[in-house]
Protein backbone atom coordinates (compact mmCIF):
# COMPACT_ATOMS: atom_id res chain seq x y z
CA UNK A 1 0.00 0.00 0.00
CA UNK A 2 2.81 2.35 0.96
CA UNK A 3 4.58 1.48 -2.25
CA UNK A 4 1.48 2.29 -4.32
CA UNK A 5 1.08 5.62 -2.51
CA UNK A 6 4.76 6.42 -2.98
CA UNK A 7 4.38 5.66 -6.70
CA UNK A 8 1.49 8.11 -7.11
CA UNK A 9 3.13 10.79 -4.98
CA UNK A 10 6.27 10.39 -7.06
CA UNK A 11 4.21 10.55 -10.25
CA UNK A 12 2.47 13.74 -9.16
CA UNK A 13 5.69 15.40 -8.09
CA UNK A 14 7.58 14.36 -11.17
CA UNK A 15 8.71 17.32 -13.23
CA UNK A 16 7.43 16.78 -16.78
CA UNK A 17 9.98 16.94 -19.58
CA UNK A 18 10.60 20.19 -21.48
CA UNK A 19 8.54 19.15 -24.50
CA UNK A 20 5.50 18.24 -22.40
CA UNK A 21 5.68 21.54 -20.49
CA UNK A 22 5.99 23.42 -23.76
CA UNK A 23 3.03 21.55 -25.26
CA UNK A 24 0.86 22.38 -22.22
CA UNK A 25 1.93 26.02 -22.51
CA UNK A 26 1.06 25.94 -26.23
CA UNK A 27 -2.50 24.81 -25.45
CA UNK A 28 -2.90 27.57 -22.84
CA UNK A 29 -1.31 30.17 -25.12
CA UNK A 30 -3.67 29.20 -27.97
CA UNK A 31 -6.69 29.56 -25.66
CA UNK A 32 -5.37 32.96 -24.57
CA UNK A 33 -5.09 34.04 -28.20
CA UNK A 34 -8.62 32.87 -29.01
CA UNK A 35 -10.01 35.43 -26.56
CA UNK A 36 -7.91 38.37 -27.67
CA UNK A 37 -7.63 40.97 -30.39
CA UNK A 38 -10.16 41.82 -33.08
CA UNK A 39 -10.84 38.17 -33.90
CA UNK A 40 -12.93 37.56 -30.77
CA UNK A 41 -14.94 40.76 -31.34
CA UNK A 42 -15.64 39.73 -34.95
CA UNK A 43 -16.65 36.24 -33.87
CA UNK A 44 -18.97 37.42 -31.10
CA UNK A 45 -20.56 39.84 -33.53
CA UNK A 46 -21.16 37.02 -36.04
CA UNK A 47 -22.55 34.75 -33.35
CA UNK A 48 -24.96 37.39 -32.13
CA UNK A 49 -26.65 37.76 -35.54
CA UNK A 50 -28.93 34.69 -35.21
CA UNK A 51 -30.14 35.47 -31.64
CA UNK A 52 -30.68 39.12 -32.62
CA UNK A 53 -32.71 38.15 -35.70
CA UNK A 54 -34.68 35.61 -33.63
CA UNK A 55 -35.37 38.22 -30.96
CA UNK A 56 -36.51 40.79 -33.51
CA UNK A 57 -38.67 38.23 -35.26
CA UNK A 58 -40.27 37.13 -32.01
CA UNK A 59 -41.02 40.73 -31.12
CA UNK A 60 -42.33 41.79 -34.54
CA UNK A 61 -44.14 38.69 -35.73
CA UNK A 62 -45.39 37.56 -32.37
CA UNK A 63 -48.95 36.79 -33.39
CA UNK A 64 -48.37 35.56 -36.92
CA UNK A 65 -48.60 31.84 -37.60
CA UNK A 66 -45.77 30.07 -39.37
CA UNK A 67 -43.05 31.91 -37.50
CA UNK A 68 -41.92 28.85 -35.65
CA UNK A 69 -40.17 27.08 -38.56
CA UNK A 70 -38.19 30.20 -39.19
CA UNK A 71 -36.34 29.75 -35.90
CA UNK A 72 -35.21 26.31 -37.02
CA UNK A 73 -34.15 27.81 -40.34
CA UNK A 74 -32.10 30.39 -38.45
CA UNK A 75 -30.24 27.66 -36.61
CA UNK A 76 -30.00 25.42 -39.63
CA UNK A 77 -28.88 27.89 -42.30
CA UNK A 78 -27.27 30.72 -40.38
CA UNK A 79 -25.71 29.26 -37.24
CA UNK A 80 -24.82 25.81 -38.57
CA UNK A 81 -23.71 26.85 -42.02
CA UNK A 82 -22.71 30.45 -42.73
CA UNK A 83 -21.56 31.47 -39.23
CA UNK A 84 -19.49 28.31 -38.82
CA UNK A 85 -17.62 28.89 -42.08
CA UNK A 86 -17.03 32.57 -41.30
CA UNK A 87 -15.78 32.06 -37.72
CA UNK A 88 -13.50 29.24 -38.86
CA UNK A 89 -12.17 31.54 -41.57
CA UNK A 90 -11.55 34.39 -39.11
CA UNK A 91 -9.51 32.15 -36.81
CA UNK A 92 -7.90 29.99 -39.47
CA UNK A 93 -6.47 33.03 -41.24
CA UNK A 94 -5.76 35.10 -38.10
CA UNK A 95 -3.72 32.37 -36.43
CA UNK A 96 -1.67 31.43 -39.47
CA UNK A 97 -0.98 33.86 -42.30
CA UNK A 98 -1.88 37.02 -40.32
CA UNK A 99 0.53 36.05 -37.56
CA UNK A 100 3.22 35.17 -40.09
CA UNK A 101 2.71 38.56 -41.72
CA UNK A 102 2.77 40.59 -38.49
CA UNK A 103 5.79 38.67 -37.21
CA UNK A 104 4.26 37.04 -34.12
CA UNK A 105 4.34 33.55 -35.64
CA UNK A 106 8.13 33.80 -35.77
CA UNK A 107 8.33 33.75 -31.97
CA UNK A 108 6.04 30.72 -31.79
CA UNK A 109 8.14 28.82 -34.33
CA UNK A 110 11.29 29.40 -32.26
CA UNK A 111 10.10 27.64 -29.14
CA UNK A 112 10.32 24.06 -27.89
CA UNK A 113 7.06 23.23 -29.70
CA UNK A 114 7.45 21.63 -33.12
CA UNK A 115 5.55 23.38 -35.89
CA UNK A 116 3.17 20.47 -36.41
CA UNK A 117 2.07 20.90 -32.80
CA UNK A 118 1.38 24.57 -33.43
CA UNK A 119 -0.84 23.71 -36.43
CA UNK A 120 -2.56 20.94 -34.47
CA UNK A 121 -3.26 23.31 -31.57
CA UNK A 122 -4.72 25.88 -33.95
CA UNK A 123 -7.33 23.33 -35.01
CA UNK A 124 -7.94 21.10 -32.01
CA UNK A 125 -7.84 23.79 -29.30
CA UNK A 126 -9.74 26.48 -31.18
CA UNK A 127 -12.58 24.32 -32.60
CA UNK A 128 -14.13 23.20 -29.25
CA UNK A 129 -14.02 26.79 -27.93
CA UNK A 130 -15.75 28.13 -31.03
CA UNK A 131 -18.23 25.23 -30.87
CA UNK A 132 -19.16 26.14 -27.29
CA UNK A 133 -19.64 29.76 -28.35
CA UNK A 134 -21.76 28.59 -31.29
CA UNK A 135 -23.78 26.39 -28.93
CA UNK A 136 -24.37 29.41 -26.69
CA UNK A 137 -25.47 31.40 -29.74
CA UNK A 138 -27.93 28.65 -30.75
CA UNK A 139 -29.25 28.44 -27.19
CA UNK A 140 -29.78 32.20 -27.23
CA UNK A 141 -31.57 31.91 -30.60
CA UNK A 142 -34.02 29.42 -29.17
CA UNK A 143 -34.35 31.44 -25.97
CA UNK A 144 -35.27 34.47 -28.08
CA UNK A 145 -37.70 32.30 -30.06
CA UNK A 146 -39.55 31.30 -26.91
CA UNK A 147 -40.54 34.95 -26.53
CA UNK A 148 -42.87 34.45 -29.49
CA UNK A 149 -46.39 33.42 -28.42
CA UNK A 150 -46.96 32.01 -31.94
CA UNK A 151 -45.39 28.80 -30.78
CA UNK A 152 -41.66 28.70 -31.16
CA UNK A 153 -39.90 25.35 -31.05
CA UNK A 154 -38.78 24.34 -27.60
CA UNK A 155 -35.26 23.23 -28.31
CA UNK A 156 -34.36 21.54 -25.09
CA UNK A 157 -30.84 20.81 -23.89
CA UNK A 158 -30.47 17.64 -25.99
CA UNK A 159 -31.03 19.45 -29.29
CA UNK A 160 -28.73 22.31 -28.30
CA UNK A 161 -26.09 19.80 -27.24
CA UNK A 162 -26.48 17.99 -30.58
CA UNK A 163 -26.13 21.31 -32.42
CA UNK A 164 -22.97 22.12 -30.44
CA UNK A 165 -21.49 18.71 -31.21
CA UNK A 166 -22.20 19.12 -34.92
CA UNK A 167 -20.77 22.64 -34.82
CA UNK A 168 -17.60 21.21 -33.26
CA UNK A 169 -17.21 18.59 -36.01
CA UNK A 170 -17.84 21.11 -38.78
CA UNK A 171 -15.54 23.70 -37.20
CA UNK A 172 -12.74 21.15 -36.93
CA UNK A 173 -13.09 20.37 -40.64
CA UNK A 174 -13.28 24.03 -41.72
CA UNK A 175 -10.46 25.13 -39.40
CA UNK A 176 -8.20 22.33 -40.62
CA UNK A 177 -8.87 23.52 -44.17
CA UNK A 178 -8.22 27.20 -43.40
CA UNK A 179 -5.09 26.46 -41.33
CA UNK A 180 -3.81 24.36 -44.22
CA UNK A 181 -4.49 27.23 -46.65
CA UNK A 182 -2.89 29.73 -44.22
CA UNK A 183 0.38 27.78 -44.23
CA UNK A 184 0.31 26.52 -47.79
CA UNK A 185 -0.54 29.57 -49.89
CA UNK A 186 0.67 33.14 -50.06
CA UNK A 187 -2.73 34.36 -51.24
CA UNK A 188 -4.43 32.09 -48.78
CA UNK A 189 -7.47 34.25 -48.11
CA UNK A 190 -8.44 34.45 -51.79
CA UNK A 191 -7.77 30.75 -52.33
CA UNK A 192 -9.58 29.55 -49.22
CA UNK A 193 -12.59 31.83 -49.69
CA UNK A 194 -12.81 30.89 -53.38
CA UNK A 195 -12.61 27.19 -52.62
CA UNK A 196 -15.14 27.49 -49.82
CA UNK A 197 -17.60 29.34 -52.06
CA UNK A 198 -17.45 26.71 -54.78
CA UNK A 199 -17.15 23.70 -52.53
CA UNK A 200 -19.51 24.55 -49.71
CA UNK A 201 -21.96 27.10 -51.09
CA UNK A 202 -22.39 26.38 -54.81
CA UNK A 203 -21.93 22.61 -54.93
CA UNK A 204 -24.79 21.81 -52.49
CA UNK A 205 -27.11 23.84 -54.74
CA UNK A 206 -26.37 21.66 -57.75
CA UNK A 207 -28.33 18.41 -58.00
CA UNK A 208 -25.35 16.20 -58.78
CA UNK A 209 -23.85 13.37 -56.85
CA UNK A 210 -20.89 15.63 -56.01
CA UNK A 211 -23.23 17.62 -53.77
CA UNK A 212 -22.80 14.90 -51.18
CA UNK A 213 -19.07 15.62 -50.99
CA UNK A 214 -19.40 18.77 -48.92
CA UNK A 215 -18.83 19.33 -45.22
CA UNK A 216 -22.10 21.29 -45.02
CA UNK A 217 -24.28 18.57 -46.42
CA UNK A 218 -22.71 15.86 -44.27
CA UNK A 219 -22.94 17.91 -41.07
CA UNK A 220 -26.60 18.55 -41.95
CA UNK A 221 -27.13 14.82 -42.27
CA UNK A 222 -25.65 14.37 -38.79
CA UNK A 223 -27.94 17.16 -37.62
CA UNK A 224 -30.98 15.40 -39.11
CA UNK A 225 -30.16 12.21 -37.24
CA UNK A 226 -29.17 13.82 -33.94
CA UNK A 227 -31.69 16.66 -33.75
CA UNK A 228 -34.55 15.81 -36.14
CA UNK A 229 -34.92 12.01 -35.83
CA UNK A 230 -33.49 11.52 -39.32
CA UNK A 231 -36.42 13.07 -41.15
CA UNK A 232 -35.39 14.76 -44.35
CA UNK A 233 -38.58 16.90 -44.33
CA UNK A 234 -38.27 20.43 -45.57
CA UNK A 235 -34.56 20.74 -44.90
CA UNK A 236 -33.32 19.33 -48.18
CA UNK A 237 -36.19 20.14 -50.53
CA UNK A 238 -33.83 21.88 -52.94
CA UNK A 239 -31.77 18.71 -53.33
CA UNK A 240 -34.23 16.73 -55.45
CA UNK A 241 -31.84 14.62 -57.48
CA UNK A 242 -29.46 13.68 -54.69
CA UNK A 243 -29.44 10.63 -52.47
CA UNK A 244 -28.51 11.87 -49.03
CA UNK A 245 -25.78 9.94 -47.28
CA UNK A 246 -26.78 8.07 -44.17
CA UNK A 247 -25.39 8.71 -40.70
CA UNK A 248 -22.48 6.29 -41.10
CA UNK A 249 -21.46 7.64 -44.50
CA UNK A 250 -21.62 11.22 -43.24
CA UNK A 251 -19.49 10.37 -40.19
CA UNK A 252 -16.96 8.61 -42.39
CA UNK A 253 -16.80 11.50 -44.88
CA UNK A 254 -16.27 14.10 -42.15
CA UNK A 255 -13.62 11.96 -40.46
CA UNK A 256 -11.73 11.65 -43.73
CA UNK A 257 -11.95 15.43 -44.40
CA UNK A 258 -10.72 16.29 -40.88
CA UNK A 259 -7.87 13.76 -41.02
CA UNK A 260 -6.83 14.84 -44.52
CA UNK A 261 -6.71 18.59 -43.88
CA UNK A 262 -5.23 18.22 -40.40
CA UNK A 263 -2.40 16.14 -41.83
CA UNK A 264 -1.92 18.59 -44.70
CA UNK A 265 -1.94 21.54 -42.24
CA UNK A 266 0.77 19.91 -40.11
CA UNK A 267 2.92 19.04 -43.13
CA UNK A 268 2.66 22.55 -44.61
CA UNK A 269 3.44 24.14 -41.23
CA UNK A 270 6.61 22.03 -41.05
CA UNK A 271 7.65 23.29 -44.45
CA UNK A 272 6.61 26.94 -44.25
CA UNK A 273 9.44 29.47 -44.33
CA UNK A 274 8.75 32.62 -42.30
CA UNK A 275 10.24 35.28 -44.52
CA UNK A 276 10.98 38.87 -43.53
CA UNK A 277 8.74 41.78 -44.52
CA UNK A 278 11.29 43.11 -46.99
CA UNK A 279 11.31 39.81 -48.85
CA UNK A 280 7.52 39.59 -48.72
Amino acid at each position, binding site marked *: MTLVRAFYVGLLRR*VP*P*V*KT*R*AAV*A*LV*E*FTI*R*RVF*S*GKRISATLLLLMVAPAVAGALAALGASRPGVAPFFDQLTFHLSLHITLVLTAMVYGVALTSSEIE*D*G*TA*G*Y*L*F*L*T*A*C*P*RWQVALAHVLVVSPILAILTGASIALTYAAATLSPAGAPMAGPVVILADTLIAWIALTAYLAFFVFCGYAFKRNLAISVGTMLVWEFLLPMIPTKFATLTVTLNTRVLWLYLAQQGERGRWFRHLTGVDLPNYGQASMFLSVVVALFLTLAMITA*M*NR*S*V*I*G*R*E*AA
Partner: protein
Amino acid sequence: MSDPIIAVEHLNMWYGRVTALNDVSLTTPPGISGLLGPNGAGKTSFMRILVGLMRPSGGAVTVLGDDPWNNTAHNLRTGYCPEHDGFHEWMSGREFLTWMLRLRGRMREDARHGAAEALDRVRLQDAADRPIGTYSRGMRQRLKIAQAVSHDARLLFLDEPLTGTDPLVRLELIELIRSFGREGRSVLVSSHVLHEIEALTTNIVLFHRGRLVACGDVHEIRSLIDRHPHLVSVRTTRARDLAAALLRDESVSEVSFPRESEILVRTRRPDDFYARLPKVALELECSVEELSSPDDNLEAVFRYLTEK
Protein backbone atom coordinates in the same frame (compact mmCIF):
# COMPACT_ATOMS: atom_id res chain seq x y z
CA MET B 1 41.55 27.55 -32.52
CA SER B 2 37.98 27.02 -31.25
CA ASP B 3 35.26 25.50 -33.44
CA PRO B 4 33.18 27.94 -35.47
CA ILE B 5 29.71 28.64 -34.08
CA ILE B 6 28.29 29.19 -37.55
CA ALA B 7 29.43 27.36 -40.66
CA VAL B 8 27.78 28.06 -44.00
CA GLU B 9 28.69 26.48 -47.32
CA HIS B 10 27.47 27.62 -50.73
CA LEU B 11 24.30 29.08 -49.25
CA ASN B 12 21.70 30.29 -51.75
CA MET B 13 18.31 31.83 -51.19
CA TRP B 14 15.84 32.82 -53.87
CA TYR B 15 12.45 34.46 -53.62
CA GLY B 16 11.04 33.52 -57.00
CA ARG B 17 13.40 35.21 -59.44
CA VAL B 18 14.99 37.46 -56.83
CA THR B 19 18.29 36.28 -55.39
CA ALA B 20 18.56 37.12 -51.69
CA LEU B 21 21.78 35.16 -51.01
CA ASN B 22 24.23 34.09 -53.65
CA ASP B 23 26.73 31.31 -52.93
CA VAL B 24 27.67 32.46 -49.43
CA SER B 25 30.32 30.43 -47.61
CA LEU B 26 31.72 31.54 -44.25
CA THR B 27 32.49 30.55 -40.68
CA THR B 28 32.29 32.73 -37.62
CA PRO B 29 34.27 32.24 -34.41
CA PRO B 30 32.75 32.39 -30.89
CA GLY B 31 32.25 35.88 -29.49
CA ILE B 32 30.54 38.90 -31.00
CA SER B 33 30.43 39.15 -34.78
CA GLY B 34 28.92 41.94 -36.83
CA LEU B 35 26.87 41.49 -39.98
CA LEU B 36 27.06 44.63 -42.06
CA GLY B 37 25.34 45.62 -45.27
CA PRO B 38 22.78 48.01 -46.74
CA ASN B 39 19.08 47.15 -46.93
CA GLY B 40 18.47 44.36 -49.42
CA ALA B 41 21.95 42.96 -48.87
CA GLY B 42 20.52 39.70 -47.53
CA LYS B 43 21.27 40.17 -43.82
CA THR B 44 17.75 39.39 -42.59
CA SER B 45 17.42 36.38 -44.91
CA PHE B 46 20.79 35.12 -43.69
CA MET B 47 19.77 35.51 -40.05
CA ARG B 48 16.38 33.89 -40.58
CA ILE B 49 18.07 30.88 -42.14
CA LEU B 50 20.50 30.66 -39.23
CA VAL B 51 17.72 30.75 -36.62
CA GLY B 52 15.65 28.18 -38.51
CA LEU B 53 12.75 30.35 -39.65
CA MET B 54 13.61 29.92 -43.32
CA ARG B 55 14.83 26.95 -45.29
CA PRO B 56 17.58 27.87 -47.75
CA SER B 57 17.13 27.20 -51.45
CA GLY B 58 20.55 25.54 -51.52
CA GLY B 59 23.71 24.98 -49.52
CA ALA B 60 24.51 23.71 -46.04
CA VAL B 61 24.06 25.52 -42.73
CA THR B 62 25.44 24.42 -39.37
CA VAL B 63 24.81 26.42 -36.21
CA LEU B 64 26.39 25.17 -32.97
CA GLY B 65 26.97 21.89 -34.77
CA ASP B 66 23.36 21.37 -35.86
CA ASP B 67 21.08 22.08 -38.80
CA PRO B 68 18.71 24.82 -37.54
CA TRP B 69 15.69 24.00 -39.77
CA ASN B 70 12.75 22.51 -37.79
CA ASN B 71 15.06 21.86 -34.85
CA THR B 72 13.47 22.61 -31.47
CA ALA B 73 16.68 21.76 -29.58
CA HIS B 74 18.39 24.49 -31.64
CA ASN B 75 15.63 26.91 -30.63
CA LEU B 76 16.51 26.40 -26.96
CA ARG B 77 20.21 27.11 -27.52
CA THR B 78 19.74 30.24 -29.60
CA GLY B 79 17.86 33.52 -29.23
CA TYR B 80 16.59 35.77 -32.00
CA CYS B 81 15.74 39.45 -31.95
CA PRO B 82 13.95 40.22 -35.25
CA GLU B 83 14.30 43.53 -37.01
CA HIS B 84 10.57 44.25 -37.26
CA ASP B 85 8.24 44.70 -34.33
CA GLY B 86 5.81 41.83 -34.34
CA PHE B 87 4.02 41.64 -31.03
CA HIS B 88 0.61 40.78 -29.68
CA GLU B 89 -0.04 44.43 -28.88
CA TRP B 90 -2.68 43.64 -26.24
CA MET B 91 -0.18 41.66 -24.16
CA SER B 92 2.00 43.22 -21.48
CA GLY B 93 5.78 42.90 -21.74
CA ARG B 94 5.84 40.64 -18.68
CA GLU B 95 3.10 38.40 -20.05
CA PHE B 96 4.87 38.11 -23.41
CA LEU B 97 8.18 37.07 -21.83
CA THR B 98 6.46 34.64 -19.45
CA TRP B 99 4.66 32.94 -22.35
CA MET B 100 7.85 32.75 -24.41
CA LEU B 101 9.67 31.07 -21.52
CA ARG B 102 6.81 28.66 -20.87
CA LEU B 103 6.72 27.79 -24.57
CA ARG B 104 10.40 26.98 -24.23
CA GLY B 105 9.57 24.46 -21.54
CA ARG B 106 9.96 26.42 -18.32
CA MET B 107 7.65 25.75 -15.36
CA ARG B 108 5.11 28.50 -14.66
CA GLU B 109 6.91 29.95 -11.62
CA ASP B 110 10.30 29.60 -13.20
CA ALA B 111 9.02 31.42 -16.29
CA ARG B 112 7.67 34.31 -14.20
CA HIS B 113 10.98 34.58 -12.42
CA GLY B 114 12.94 34.43 -15.68
CA ALA B 115 10.70 37.11 -17.24
CA ALA B 116 11.26 39.42 -14.27
CA GLU B 117 15.03 38.89 -14.53
CA ALA B 118 15.05 39.61 -18.27
CA LEU B 119 12.94 42.75 -17.80
CA ASP B 120 15.31 43.88 -15.09
CA ARG B 121 18.25 43.24 -17.38
CA VAL B 122 16.91 45.45 -20.17
CA ARG B 123 15.54 48.02 -17.68
CA LEU B 124 11.90 47.60 -18.57
CA GLN B 125 10.53 46.86 -15.08
CA ASP B 126 8.53 50.09 -14.87
CA ALA B 127 6.64 49.37 -18.09
CA ALA B 128 6.46 45.59 -17.59
CA ASP B 129 2.71 45.47 -16.96
CA ARG B 130 1.66 47.93 -19.65
CA PRO B 131 0.28 46.66 -22.98
CA ILE B 132 3.08 46.39 -25.57
CA GLY B 133 1.00 48.59 -27.87
CA THR B 134 1.86 51.56 -25.65
CA TYR B 135 5.65 50.98 -25.78
CA SER B 136 8.05 53.38 -27.49
CA ARG B 137 10.43 52.17 -30.21
CA GLY B 138 13.32 51.85 -27.77
CA MET B 139 11.20 49.88 -25.32
CA ARG B 140 10.10 47.51 -28.05
CA GLN B 141 13.71 46.94 -29.09
CA ARG B 142 14.62 46.20 -25.47
CA LEU B 143 11.70 43.79 -25.13
CA LYS B 144 12.80 41.93 -28.26
CA ILE B 145 16.31 41.61 -26.85
CA ALA B 146 14.91 40.47 -23.48
CA GLN B 147 12.92 37.78 -25.31
CA ALA B 148 16.07 36.60 -27.10
CA VAL B 149 18.21 36.31 -23.95
CA SER B 150 15.61 35.27 -21.34
CA HIS B 151 16.11 31.53 -21.85
CA ASP B 152 19.91 31.69 -21.42
CA ALA B 153 20.67 31.12 -25.09
CA ARG B 154 24.27 30.37 -25.96
CA LEU B 155 24.07 32.15 -29.27
CA LEU B 156 22.13 35.34 -30.00
CA PHE B 157 21.02 36.65 -33.37
CA LEU B 158 20.20 40.35 -33.15
CA ASP B 159 18.82 41.82 -36.37
CA GLU B 160 19.31 45.60 -36.46
CA PRO B 161 18.75 45.97 -32.70
CA LEU B 162 19.77 49.64 -32.67
CA THR B 163 17.61 50.85 -35.55
CA GLY B 164 15.44 53.85 -34.76
CA THR B 165 16.64 54.29 -31.20
CA ASP B 166 17.82 57.58 -29.70
CA PRO B 167 21.52 57.98 -28.79
CA LEU B 168 21.02 57.25 -25.10
CA VAL B 169 19.11 54.03 -25.69
CA ARG B 170 21.67 53.18 -28.35
CA LEU B 171 24.52 53.48 -25.85
CA GLU B 172 22.58 51.38 -23.35
CA LEU B 173 21.90 48.68 -25.91
CA ILE B 174 25.50 48.64 -27.10
CA GLU B 175 26.64 48.13 -23.52
CA LEU B 176 24.01 45.42 -23.04
CA ILE B 177 25.16 43.54 -26.15
CA ARG B 178 28.77 43.84 -25.05
CA SER B 179 27.80 42.35 -21.68
CA PHE B 180 26.41 39.28 -23.46
CA GLY B 181 29.84 38.78 -24.99
CA ARG B 182 31.52 39.15 -21.60
CA GLU B 183 29.21 36.44 -20.22
CA GLY B 184 30.62 34.04 -22.80
CA ARG B 185 27.66 34.08 -25.16
CA SER B 186 28.21 34.37 -28.87
CA VAL B 187 26.34 37.12 -30.69
CA LEU B 188 25.73 37.82 -34.36
CA VAL B 189 24.47 41.38 -34.66
CA SER B 190 23.44 43.01 -37.90
CA SER B 191 23.37 46.67 -38.85
CA HIS B 192 23.69 48.93 -41.85
CA VAL B 193 25.78 51.39 -39.83
CA LEU B 194 29.46 50.53 -39.58
CA HIS B 195 29.92 52.74 -36.55
CA GLU B 196 27.39 50.68 -34.56
CA ILE B 197 29.05 47.40 -35.41
CA GLU B 198 32.47 48.82 -34.70
CA ALA B 199 31.36 49.78 -31.20
CA LEU B 200 30.57 46.12 -30.56
CA THR B 201 33.20 44.02 -32.27
CA THR B 202 36.17 43.96 -34.59
CA ASN B 203 35.01 40.81 -36.33
CA ILE B 204 32.66 41.65 -39.17
CA VAL B 205 30.95 40.03 -42.12
CA LEU B 206 30.13 42.33 -45.04
CA PHE B 207 27.18 41.58 -47.31
CA HIS B 208 26.21 43.39 -50.47
CA ARG B 209 23.41 42.38 -52.83
CA GLY B 210 23.29 38.86 -51.45
CA ARG B 211 27.01 38.24 -51.77
CA LEU B 212 29.68 38.00 -49.13
CA VAL B 213 31.99 40.96 -49.78
CA ALA B 214 34.45 40.62 -46.91
CA CYS B 215 34.84 38.73 -43.68
CA GLY B 216 37.34 39.39 -40.92
CA ASP B 217 38.89 42.27 -39.02
CA VAL B 218 37.09 45.58 -39.33
CA HIS B 219 40.30 47.64 -39.33
CA GLU B 220 41.32 46.24 -42.70
CA ILE B 221 38.37 47.79 -44.49
CA ARG B 222 37.87 50.71 -42.17
CA SER B 223 40.42 52.93 -43.86
CA LEU B 224 38.73 52.34 -47.22
CA ILE B 225 35.32 53.25 -45.88
CA ASP B 226 36.62 56.34 -44.10
CA ARG B 227 37.52 57.97 -47.37
CA HIS B 228 33.89 57.98 -48.38
CA PRO B 229 31.65 60.72 -46.94
CA HIS B 230 28.91 59.52 -44.56
CA LEU B 231 25.39 60.83 -44.40
CA VAL B 232 23.61 60.80 -41.02
CA SER B 233 19.99 61.72 -40.42
CA VAL B 234 19.16 63.25 -37.02
CA ARG B 235 15.56 63.82 -35.89
CA THR B 236 15.40 66.41 -33.12
CA THR B 237 13.10 68.96 -31.53
CA ARG B 238 15.52 71.87 -32.18
CA ALA B 239 16.89 71.15 -35.61
CA ARG B 240 18.28 74.61 -36.40
CA ASP B 241 20.11 75.10 -33.07
CA LEU B 242 21.62 71.65 -33.28
CA ALA B 243 22.66 72.18 -36.90
CA ALA B 244 24.37 75.48 -36.03
CA ALA B 245 26.28 73.83 -33.18
CA LEU B 246 27.28 70.85 -35.32
CA LEU B 247 28.56 73.03 -38.14
CA ARG B 248 31.14 74.49 -35.75
CA ASP B 249 32.60 70.99 -35.52
CA GLU B 250 35.36 70.10 -37.99
CA SER B 251 34.00 66.60 -38.57
CA VAL B 252 30.85 68.01 -40.20
CA SER B 253 31.19 69.15 -43.80
CA GLU B 254 27.57 69.90 -44.72
CA VAL B 255 24.13 70.16 -43.11
CA SER B 256 20.72 70.23 -44.78
CA PHE B 257 17.08 70.21 -43.61
CA PRO B 258 14.89 67.71 -45.47
CA ARG B 259 12.12 68.37 -42.91
CA GLU B 260 11.46 70.87 -40.13
CA SER B 261 12.57 68.49 -37.38
CA GLU B 262 15.27 66.60 -39.29
CA ILE B 263 18.89 67.37 -40.11
CA LEU B 264 20.93 65.56 -42.73
CA VAL B 265 24.59 65.73 -41.79
CA ARG B 266 27.46 64.89 -44.16
CA THR B 267 30.68 63.91 -42.43
CA ARG B 268 34.04 62.46 -43.46
CA ARG B 269 34.88 61.49 -39.87
CA PRO B 270 31.88 59.52 -38.58
CA ASP B 271 33.67 58.41 -35.40
CA ASP B 272 34.26 61.99 -34.32
CA PHE B 273 30.74 62.97 -35.29
CA TYR B 274 29.04 60.15 -33.36
CA ALA B 275 31.22 60.95 -30.32
CA ARG B 276 30.46 64.66 -30.51
CA LEU B 277 26.69 64.51 -31.14
CA PRO B 278 25.51 63.45 -27.62
CA LYS B 279 27.71 66.14 -26.04
CA VAL B 280 26.36 68.87 -28.31
CA ALA B 281 22.78 67.71 -27.69
CA LEU B 282 23.40 67.75 -23.96
CA GLU B 283 24.89 71.24 -24.05
CA LEU B 284 21.89 72.54 -25.99
CA GLU B 285 19.49 70.51 -23.84
CA CYS B 286 17.69 69.30 -26.94
CA SER B 287 16.43 65.74 -27.35
CA VAL B 288 17.59 63.61 -30.27
CA GLU B 289 14.60 61.43 -31.16
CA GLU B 290 16.13 59.31 -33.87
CA LEU B 291 19.50 58.76 -35.44
CA SER B 292 19.94 56.84 -38.64
CA SER B 293 22.25 56.46 -41.56
CA PRO B 294 20.32 56.49 -44.83
CA ASP B 295 20.71 53.32 -46.80
CA ASP B 296 21.65 55.03 -50.00
CA ASN B 297 24.67 56.30 -48.12
CA LEU B 298 25.87 52.83 -47.20
CA GLU B 299 24.91 51.59 -50.63
CA ALA B 300 27.34 54.18 -52.02
CA VAL B 301 30.04 53.04 -49.62
CA PHE B 302 29.57 49.46 -50.70
CA ARG B 303 29.60 50.38 -54.34
CA TYR B 304 32.82 52.19 -53.59
CA LEU B 305 34.21 49.15 -51.80
CA THR B 306 33.22 46.61 -54.40
CA GLU B 307 34.61 48.74 -57.17
CA LYS B 308 38.00 48.96 -55.48
